[in-house]
């Protein structure tokens, strides 16, 4: 059987595959077309609320791609992902605001920020610092979970997320480097933070959203590229091997500790970059942003899109952002009132996400755009050869 299907006949797709209606170049063409459309979007839709939602969607795409590395690729259920959002955001609060007014450090900044007291570091550097800090935090959080089994990992990461939340709330009382240097500003938040200033581009501001949009789009493309390359690399295959069967992977020579820690570090670094961007965009770093429900929000994006599927996660993140920021508050908010019910739909925010989690898990556990290998596990009618073919030709 295997000898007859010689390597020469590779491009001939096995018949009966699910997506066999589309030609093989379709995927790449669609990706390029969507990317061009995404870049041109601000010219056709300059309305600021819509563009604002798109910016948040972009940041959440990055966030969800990061969580997907941990949950989707490596199969380590992380319920404390908000920790990296917090650390990334606080990096902006610490290194790019007038919060530490006693210090007077300016690194590669110009414009307004150069004149203000406090620590001001160029946003691109802050992005790198955020990624590094989060990678370290990811490894530190990952270390205690190495020996644990799946559901315990979920709880330990949740506990770390909550601990960081508590530190964010009470951090105004912690002064590690002396009186003028509290860790956080608690519920009041560190605000304002520096508006992004990139080389050759004018200072960003809250009125003109286009630069923000293109920046986050660039970040999303960068992360998308990194994540796809990671997935197809030796490391990515090791992650999938661990996800499918840890014992088998270890006996085939996959170094469990290193591979798992890399997954935590990579996922955390990506989350941190997105967190740094969101902090600059929202112009505040506030402890209340870092609640457990945020972790679930991002997890819902990954699950809705399809755990492990990069394009599915992108779709899941965009869908859920628009459900959360546009569909629920703007479009359907009055519906219960029209039915003479005494609440607004926005009160149901996280109930809807909970329902989505349950619904997706019961009805379509592989998500909207499933990863084929994962689908194989969940459905009996998917052919192994089909999956292998697809992995060779993507």
């Amino acid at each position, binding site marked *: 059987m295997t000898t007859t299907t010689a390597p020469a006949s590779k491009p001939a797709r096995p018949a009966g595959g699910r997506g066999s209606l589309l030609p093989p170049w379709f995927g790449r063409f669609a990706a390029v077309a969507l990317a061009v459309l995404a870049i041109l979007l601000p010219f056709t839709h300059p309305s600021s609320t819509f563009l604002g939602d798109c910016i948040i969607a972009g940041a959440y795409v990055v966030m969800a791609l990061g969580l997907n590395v941990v949950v989707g690729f490596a199969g380590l259920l992380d319920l404390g992902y908000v920790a990296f959002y917090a650390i990334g955001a606080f990096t902006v609060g610490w290194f790019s605001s007038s919060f530490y007014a006693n210090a007077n450090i300016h690194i590669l900044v110009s414009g307004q920020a150069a004149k203000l007291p406090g620590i001001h570091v160029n946003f691109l550097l802050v992005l790198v610092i955020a990624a590094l800090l989060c990678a370290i935090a990811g490894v530190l959080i990952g270390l205690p979970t190495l020996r*644990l089994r799946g559901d*315990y990992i979920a*709880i330990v990461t949740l*506990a770390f997320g909550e601990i960081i939340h508590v530190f964010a709330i*009470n951090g105004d009382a912690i002064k590690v480097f002396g009186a003028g240097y509290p860790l956080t500003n608690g519920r009041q938040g560190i605000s304002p933070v520096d508006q992004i200033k990139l080389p050759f581009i004018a200072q960003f501001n809250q009125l003109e959203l286009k630069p923000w949009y293109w920046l986050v789009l660039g970040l999303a493309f960068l992360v998308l590229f990194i994540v796809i390359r990671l997935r197809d690399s030796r490391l990515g295959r090791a992650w999938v091997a661990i996800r499918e069967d840890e014992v088998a992977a270890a006996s085939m020579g996959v170094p469990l500790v290193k591979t798992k820690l890399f997954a935590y570090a990579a996922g955390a670094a990506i989350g941190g970059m997105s967190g740094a961007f969101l902090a600059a965009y929202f112009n505040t770093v506030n402890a209340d942003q870092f609640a457990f429900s945020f972790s679930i929000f991002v997890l819902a994006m990954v699950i809705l899109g399809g755990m492990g599927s990069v394009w599915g996660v992108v779709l899941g993140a965009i869908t859920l952002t628009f459900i959360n920021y546009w569909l629920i508050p703007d479009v359907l908010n009055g519906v219960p009132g029209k039915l003479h019910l005494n609440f607004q739909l926005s009160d149901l925010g996280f109930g809807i996400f*909970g329902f989505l989690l349950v619904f997706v898990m019961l009805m379509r*556990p592989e998500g909207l755009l499933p990863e084929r290998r994962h689908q194989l596990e969940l459905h009996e009618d998917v052919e192994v050869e089909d999956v292998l073919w697809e992995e060779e030709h993507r």
Partner: protein
Amino acid sequence: MATETHTDPPPKASAAPVMAPRAGDRARELVSKWGLWAILLALPVVYAIKDLAAGKGLAPIAQNLLAGLSNGSIWALIALGYTLVYGIIELINFANGEVFMIGSFTSAALIGTLGLTLTTGPLGLVFGLLVILVIAMVASGSLNVMIEKVGYRPLRNAPKLAPLITAVGFSFILQNVGLLWLGGSPASVPDLIHAQQDVFTVFGVTVQRADVLAIGITVPLVIGATLFIARSRLGKAMRATAQDPDAARLMGINVDTTISLTFALGGMLAGAAGLIYALYETTIWYFQGFQAGLIAFTAAVMGGIGNLRGAVLGGIIIGCIQQISDNRIGPDWTPAVVFAFLVLIMVFRPQGLLGEETREAG
């Protein structure tokens, strides 16, 4: 000859390296066995010494421990729900905390329905509260069974993370139900039992009515649940299913019913905890279940998940830690302290203080 002399030395040489890890292993075993106890005792001992040094005697720390005991008995009831469910299907029933919250809300609603007020006489109060206890337990138990039917049963053969995710989903749905039910801010419950009223004082430790209520309801319930599992026919079926569901099915045990029963039992205990909590704290809100759930889960893991006595012990220990932290470190930090303990347990002794009794561990 040559081969003999050649083979002789290696065992001798390797004897030392073999011995060395053994000593290391023993040390590690010692740390894993007693390290957690040491960490647990650190908090009360440190503050007791501080109190003694300040000339306050041991009464303050004893007062903390008493409050911890009564507070911890609520966590113990919820932890039993986690441990029962984990023991039988190896799932962290994330929604258990929310089931407890719904138990509280049901109790609060029933207090209004039955017309219990601060002026109700003692006989009416006891009778009314008993009725509420039963109804709250039945409501929470049926809710838990329903969640299992809808959310977990279809996924019994799916990858393990799938039911955990639906559990998180149900937890959120129920939180939202609570939010719609009583609104976003804490609601007050009539202080029917005059919770803060002192009953008696021994050695400077004051026992309040709330303590008596919490311990007085918890102890019979825990004894009842333990006896049910240890002695009754259904309890035997539960233990058999926990050990090996397939073998249990072959022996003629209806595994689905048994699992439903386990969820019912866990939910009922959570419902009882809900009533106690409402009377004990006299405020309830939709978020209490999430916090209580995590605390109780920590308690269950601390005792050794799947182990009933462990869950009770863990609940009481967590209650004490919480009270000491509330009083000495500050209530703002209590969640972080409790979660830090959770992480420490996971690192040093994931099988818990009394050892876990689950399939994977055994």
